[in-house]
């Protein structure tokens, strides 16, 4: 970090110091470093007292005036490296647009070599940080930028392996807040609605009593929409140890918000819905742990799907959105899984497969079971970070929309 005083032009020629301080402070806060206003003010005064002429000087100036504790140093170093060391001057910040005195050094401004970093832009462009996926967003369609509390935003791209208990509690609260929009289904029941498509003769006649049997007000009806059932099948085998807790938390949020059904499976199948309905997250998770006898054992996806379809809960799948959270490592033959998934496919409305490995760049479903399952899944979604879970929730909400692209073939 302390090297790099190479042939770089003065880093901050003609840059608005206040905007730089505000932008840098903002970004530090997004990364979970608490920076107060007086620190930002101190940074501006320090910049004025000794305008940094190299990147190293800028580093020390910023670090000394903005960072207040040793535990924050790592986050600061990472941010500084992302902003000033790895990124070139890719944009044209407003403050630099004014013509500068022609100096030879300016021609040496490095070309934008590094890809645009997360959050995009330069520190002195004080755009609000948005979360909601700029990195994998291609598949999720236009995502609505979602402002989040700093602490949760800082966790967006932390893999689940790295989460501690406190952060899981944060996840619980955060998931609960993400769920207002859930898919619905049309029921057979009809109710009067102003925007109804059909005229309701009976209600119109009844209403006309008030107007001497003259039908002045036309009552329209339309089918009632109810929340669509969600079924989460969560793999709790050893290979899913890190993600299982987060997925069960997702399940808990779904159970509480949308009456979802949650099953855990490894070698056997356990229904967790009643347990997860508990108010306290910690108590729910503790009971769930107790309830699942085969936690962190092997995996038999096909056998468990068969058990589910044979059980009295089989009808829960009808017209439901089935979420399967698993990495696809199955000890049953792949053909069996294909058969069972075909049965689920015929009952369910959509099948979404959440695979923690799918977040890795260059992921291909090479595991036999995953490859066999692929034709029956509407979407395979990565599920390794908060941001990925957020996109899973978006994908659930998108199940209301008609299927885009080529029509899927079912067996």
């Amino acid at each position, binding site marked *: 970090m302390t090297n790099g005083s190479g042939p770089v032009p003065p880093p901050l020629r003609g840059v608005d110091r206040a905007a730089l301080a505000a932008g840098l402070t903002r970004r530090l806060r997004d990364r979970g470093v608490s920076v107060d206003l007086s620190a930002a003010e*101190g940074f501006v005064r320090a910049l004025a007292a000794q305008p940094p002429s190299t990147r190293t000087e800028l580093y020390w*100036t910023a670090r*000394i005036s903005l*960072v207040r504790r040793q535990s924050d140093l790592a986050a600061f170093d990472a941010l500084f490296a992302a902003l000033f060391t790895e990124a070139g001057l890719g944009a044209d910040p407003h403050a630099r647009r004014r013509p500068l005195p022609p100096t030879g050094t300016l021609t040496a401004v490095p070309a934008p070599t590094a890809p645009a970093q997360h959050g995009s832009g330069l520190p002195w462009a004080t755009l609000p940080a948005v979360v909601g996926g700029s990195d994998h967003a291609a598949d999720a369609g236009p995502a609505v930028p979602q402002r989040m509390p700093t602490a949760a935003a800082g966790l967006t791209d932390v893999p689940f392996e790295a989460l501690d208990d406190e952060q899981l509690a944060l996840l619980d609260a955060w998931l609960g807040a993400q769920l207002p929009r859930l898919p619905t289904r049309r029921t057979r029941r009809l109710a009067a609605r102003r925007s109804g498509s059909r005229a309701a003769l009976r209600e119109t006649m009844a209403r006309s009593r008030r107007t001497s049997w003259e039908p002045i007000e036309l009552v329209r009806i339309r089918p009632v929409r109810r929340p669509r059932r969600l079924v989460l099948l969560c793999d709790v085998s050893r290979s899913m140890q890190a993600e299982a807790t987060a997925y069960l938390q997702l399940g808990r949020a779904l159970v509480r918000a949308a009456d979802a059904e949650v099953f855990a499976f490894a070698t056997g199948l356990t229904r967790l819905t009643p347990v997860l309905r508990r108010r306290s997250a910690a108590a729910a998770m503790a009971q769930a742990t107790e309830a699942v006898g085969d936690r962190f054992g092997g995996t038999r996806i096909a056998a468990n799907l068969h058990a589910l379809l044979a059980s009295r809960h089989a009808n829960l799948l009808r017209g439901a959105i089935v979420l399967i959270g698993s990495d696809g490592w199955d000890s049953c033959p792949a053909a069996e899984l294909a058969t069972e998934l075909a049965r689920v496919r015929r009952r369910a409305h959509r099948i979404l497969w959440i695979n923690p490995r799918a977040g890795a760049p260059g992921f291909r479903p090479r595991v036999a079971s995953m490859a066999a399952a692929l034709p029956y899944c509407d979407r395979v979604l990565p599920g390794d970070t908060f941001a990925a879970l957020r996109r899973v929730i978006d994908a659930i909400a998108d199940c209301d929309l008609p299927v885009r692209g080529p029509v899927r073939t079912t067996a």
Partner: protein
Amino acid sequence: MTNELTDAATLADRMQRVGYLVDEGLATALFFAVRLGQPVLLEGEPGVGKTTAAKALAGALDTTLIRLQCYEGLTASEALYEWNYQRQLLAIRLAESRGDRLRDADLFTAEFLSDRPILQAIRFAGPRPPVLLIDEIDRADDEFEALLFEFLGEAAVSIPEIGTFTARRRPIVVLTSNRSRELHDALRRRCLYHWIEFPAAARVAQILRRAVPGADGSLIASAADFVGRVRILELDKPPGLAEVIDWVSALSLLGVTELTRPAAERTLAALAKTADDRDTVADAFDALDEPDTTRA
């Protein structure tokens, strides 16, 4: 003198002249403390030279160092000011003997005030602002931190009987902490902050060469290298720079020119400060002979 200080490099150069090597980070931190008049909080493991940095700063700026060593139970009367009761009593007696009448306001004036380090720094009358070192602030109680806020923020001390003393020129304040407890955010907010890393082997050697002029070159190089390796081990108290300097001084007193096992064992007391560490460091001496043969 302070006015001539144009950038951190000048300060680093000047501190080097009084015998203290600073890296760019520490130099920048101290430079801003001088230039912006903001207190600077230095943290780091014990023995990386936090206190020495403040002393060297005072030396480099050619000004007075006022030191306040913190300890548990430190109160305002030891840190800020105290009324000089004896002088007050004497004044009363004198007034009685002269037949004068004394009012309260006559007894509580600046002349009856004994300055303690912080008030001393504020009322300092020298040509240049003094360096006030508040050492090991983590040892003082939380309440004491709150006592410092007014001074750190405004460089002022309020005395109820007299009024507020404000420094004519802000003293340069250096606080150090060993992180034996977490300091309050309000204190951190008022300070610049610098975390002093334990220096790399090459820099340790540089510092040793300066601190122990009599020591042999190869001894210093191997000692610096060895300490780098020992610090990675699980030690109760990893040796800091101060210990290393003691150790190398001890070795060079014994006339050692090459770091060998017997010599190292004789001077172990300078390096390892607990019984467990003695064993761990002694084990590390075993490796002392091997790498030499592999390297050769």
